[in-house]
């Protein structure tokens, strides 16, 4: 028994449409997840930077603070690569500059400063 030719054509076009729909769905979901991961990476890196500035405000050495932030980034962001990391401490300023590549050209660049010594609202200025 043979199928009429128009049935075969219809089946083929249905398959093609279904495949396209599937690709579109996977694309949308992957895109959504990528945006979520990118946003999370940004928030996580901001926090890691802040924590490393707090670390620099203590007597800990710059290399100790650097190892800490590297471990924190590794622990929180399984995908992506740290391109550069610079930590500096002077008498009245702690500074961090980092670049993190989430995927190829999707790079995050963060720069933060913290006035030293740390003070709270009760003691002029609110830095903490």
């Amino acid at each position, binding site marked *: 028994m043979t199928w009429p030719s128009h049935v075969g054509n219809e089946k083929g076009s*249905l398959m093609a449409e279904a495949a396209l729909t599937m690709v579109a769905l996977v694309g949308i979901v992957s895109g959504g*997840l990528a945006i979520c991961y990118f946003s999370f990476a940004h*928030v996580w890196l901001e926090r890691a930077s802040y924590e490393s500035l*707090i670390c620099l405000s203590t*007597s800990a050495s710059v290399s*100790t603070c650097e190892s800490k932030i590297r471990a924190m980034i590794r622990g929180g962001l399984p995908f992506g690569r740290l391109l550069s990391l610079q930590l500096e401490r002077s008498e009245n300023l702690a500074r961090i500059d980092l670049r993190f590549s989430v995927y190829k050209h999707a790079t995050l660049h963060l720069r933060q400063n913290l006035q030293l*010594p740390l003070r*709270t609202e*009760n003691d002029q200025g609110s830095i*903490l």
Partner: protein
Amino acid sequence: MKNENGFITSAFLILLPLFVAVLASITAAYFLFTADSRARQVCRVEVLNAQTTLAKDLNRLIDMNTQAAALRAKRKQAEALAASGQPQAVAALQAVIAEQIAFSAQQRLLLMKARLLSRTAPSVALTKAMASIRKSAFGFAAFDFSAEAINGSAHSAAFDVLPSPPTDLTPNYRPSALFTRNQEMRARWAFDVAKLLPPWLRRLVQAQGLHRRSEGDCSATIEKGRKWEPKMTVARP
């Protein structure tokens, strides 16, 4: 057409739970993350405020040493004169002693206040940090931030100053050699993330070996700079 609809529905049904699960995980991570950040901030502000007050108290106590030494010298002089037994000299000695008692009360009051704050501030910081975690968690009702879920510890500072001479009524006070170390106050808290989840989800997470521990701490001390100043420290175990 029916087939196509069926295929889309199936694909949607397969991908939707995955998407929802990932989204829920990211939301949960975000809540935990903000709760942790706020708690650290609250704790840091608390211990740094306490150490700022204590540093001022310590500097004031040290500044009082000049007057304490002057009173000791004055008393020595008055005692030497009073040894003759002259009523005027004895009266003068009594006046100096009264002055010393009043001054000593000021020193002791300052010391008592500082020691009390050194002892209580870390516990207050811990309580505030844990309250902040619970408050943040109300945004995410699935978490159970009951008292059993989080455990914490607070380490008090000693405000370790030594009187010199030790038996005098108005001694000079100076920080001990280990003052900075002994003055470190810290608060530490930890919770098993799985314990915060509702029981049905907890079992699933534990079965998958996904449970993680979240830890936070803050600590500060007082260090000698131009004067004694508060400083954040890296919490020691």
